[in-house]
């Protein structure tokens, strides 16, 4: 059918074309799906492990999914249930008397029938499990960590820095995109250059500057907040690109109508640049929420000022069991991920980056 279609055309050719089209779409979607599943597989591990019990993690025969060993209450105790092979097929039995060479079982369906003898080592038997989700890992975490304090500290650093960095970056981007400043090109070149400067170069002198000898900011939120109040080079760059793409006719009209520069910025530029402003705001939110370098340098002396990621570093040394640790990983990423999903309609939607040099 396929062979003849190419020459004869008509119905058959259209059919094969559609078939080809469908196969192509299916392959693309399938490929992306497989890639996504493998890309996020460590997260699946985290989600599954966080709801397991610690018994399951120490049990080598336990299944991958969260499950508890099935037990049967008999004669005053819980007894584990096993798959027991007999000559006439496998039976599901509860272990009553374990011995090395043979063991006595009982049928959970019919406990009155009395014990059943099975020869062999019960340790080789496969246990019976049932699906079960444990949320006590989260309650454990909640009890051992003061989340209220951590959230409050993180929120202070994030919120103050966010407002400061947005206002400053918007002002500077507006200045660079709409005004003829002498030496503006050189200053913009400097701005791009600061994006490239690695943090470690400024680390030594700024640490000395913040220390007790000069400013005395160690042990306070100031080193985490104050630098943000002057804007960030990369955000200024992104916002300026966006502001420049907005036609100038409107703000010139507003200027002629007597609007000052501030008024023009607030009522003409910002409404049009909203997606870019939201994007920059979100980028800073994620950065500030996860920020660890400054926090670990300047807040280590103050237990009461610790932020979320900084105290999370200590989780590893608290001696939490693996499943509680995985639960803590969920808690750590929860807020940024929720914010990302809530804001996904705006996030980086209009990020068309053109030249870096101009």
């Amino acid at each position, binding site marked *: 059918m396929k062979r003849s279609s190419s020459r004869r055309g008509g119905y058959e050719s259209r059919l094969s074309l559609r078939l080809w089209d469908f196969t192509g779409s299916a392959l693309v979607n399938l490929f992306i799906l497989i*890639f*996504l599943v493998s890309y996020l597989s460590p997260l699946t591990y985290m989600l599954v492990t966080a709801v397991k019990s610690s018994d399951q993690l120490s049990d080598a025969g336990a299944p991958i999914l969260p499950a508890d060993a099935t037990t049967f209450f008999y004669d005053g105790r819980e007894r584990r249930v096993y798959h027991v092979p007999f000559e006439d097929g496998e039976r599901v039995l509860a272990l009553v008397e374990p011995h090395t060479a043979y063991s006595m079982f009982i049928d959970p369906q019919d406990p009155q029938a009395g014990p059943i003898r099975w020869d062999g080592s019960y340790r080789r038997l496969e246990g019976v499990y049932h699906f079960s989700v444990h949320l006590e890992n989260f309650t454990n975490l909640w009890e051992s960590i003061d989340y209220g304090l951590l959230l409050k500290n993180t929120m202070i650093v994030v919120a103050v820095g966010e407002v400061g960095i947005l206002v400053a970056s918007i002002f500077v981007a507006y200045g660079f995109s709409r005004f003829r400043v002498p030496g503006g090109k050189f200053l913009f070149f400097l701005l791009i250059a600061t994006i*490239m400067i690695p943090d470690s170069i*400024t680390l030594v002198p700024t640490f000395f500057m913040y220390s007790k000898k000069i400013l005395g900011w160690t042990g306070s939120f100031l080193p985490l907040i104050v630098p943000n109040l*002057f804007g960030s080079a990369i955000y200024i760059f992104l916002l300026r690109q966006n502001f420049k793409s907005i036609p100038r006719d409107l703000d010139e009209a507003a200027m002629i109508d007597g609007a000052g520069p501030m008024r023009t910025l607030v009522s003409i530029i910002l409404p049009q640049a909203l997606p870019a402003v939201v994007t920059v705001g979100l980028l800073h939110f994620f950065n500030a929420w996860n920020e660890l370098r400054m926090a670990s340098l300047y807040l280590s002396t103050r237990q009461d000022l610790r932020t979320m990621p900084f105290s999370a570093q200590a989780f590893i040394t608290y001696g939490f069991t693996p499943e509680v*640790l995985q639960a803590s990983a969920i808690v750590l990423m929860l807020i940024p991920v929720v914010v990302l999903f809530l804001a*996904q309609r705006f996030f980086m939607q*209009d990020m068309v980056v053109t030249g870096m040099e101009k």
Partner: protein
Amino acid sequence: MLVRRKKPSTYPAAEARPRHRSLAGYSARIGFLFILPWLIGFVLFKAVPILAALGFSFMEFDMLEPEKAHFIGLQNYATFLKDTNAGASLFGSIEVFLLAVPLQMFVALALAAIFASDRLKGKPILRTLFFMPSIIPAIAIFIILSGLTYPGSGWLTRLILDPLGLPPMSFGSLFLPVLSLWSIGPSFLIMLGAIQAVPKEIYEAARVDGAGPLNRFASITLPMVSPAIFFSLVINMISAFGGVALLDRGLPYSQSLSPMEGYIVYNMFSLQDLGYASALAWVMFLVVMAMTLLLFRSARYWVHFPEEEANEEI
């Protein structure tokens, strides 16, 4: 275009503003006021610290006894040349850049190219799901990967390596690749934005001329999105050298992708040797600047910057 007004008095609202000698001067002053915050920040938190670091690098400077600091000339740099640990850390950083960045760029570009296809369904949610790992805090990744590679209950050994008969993989060998692949979010979205901005007519014209999909990608998509590729290359390079570009997931210095950065911090906080740490930082600064310059120079040959400056006014 700002037009010089001859009679400002005919505009009553303009009268309210203070008089200036010229509109250009007024524009310059207002513009300068707007960029002033960044300028102050630049001087206080970039320029002064960088110069101070240069000064410190010529001194013997113990953090515990700053009063005893004294000038020792190029001695710190001479120590650097003899310090094999410093050399190893520097090359480690360069190695990370050379290994991780091409991988990130390739995956991000391939993903963006597939996402540009009309065949893919559910793009908004997929886009967010692929971006999501880029905002996971580093500590969470650390916890997840240590669990995943744990010999007994970790899935990596149990589900993949054991059935295939492969030896167990350590946390250390997995951390860097996963971290790199989980950081492609911004590059991916920037490249996707660029690919989607390419006018459809160009592809149609090429299709009519008989260009296949691969040919269209190589001769239309790649040149058209080269500015976005360049931008992502720059931001990935900055992260590889321990800077913060677009997204920071809060890696502690000691576990940073850049071994050089870790070594600088070790010298600074464990050995309290500010002088030597500053010298190391300056060496790293020079290396990064040299690579940046090279990258920007090379851009002339492969990046097609759009000709937008023709009607540029500023």
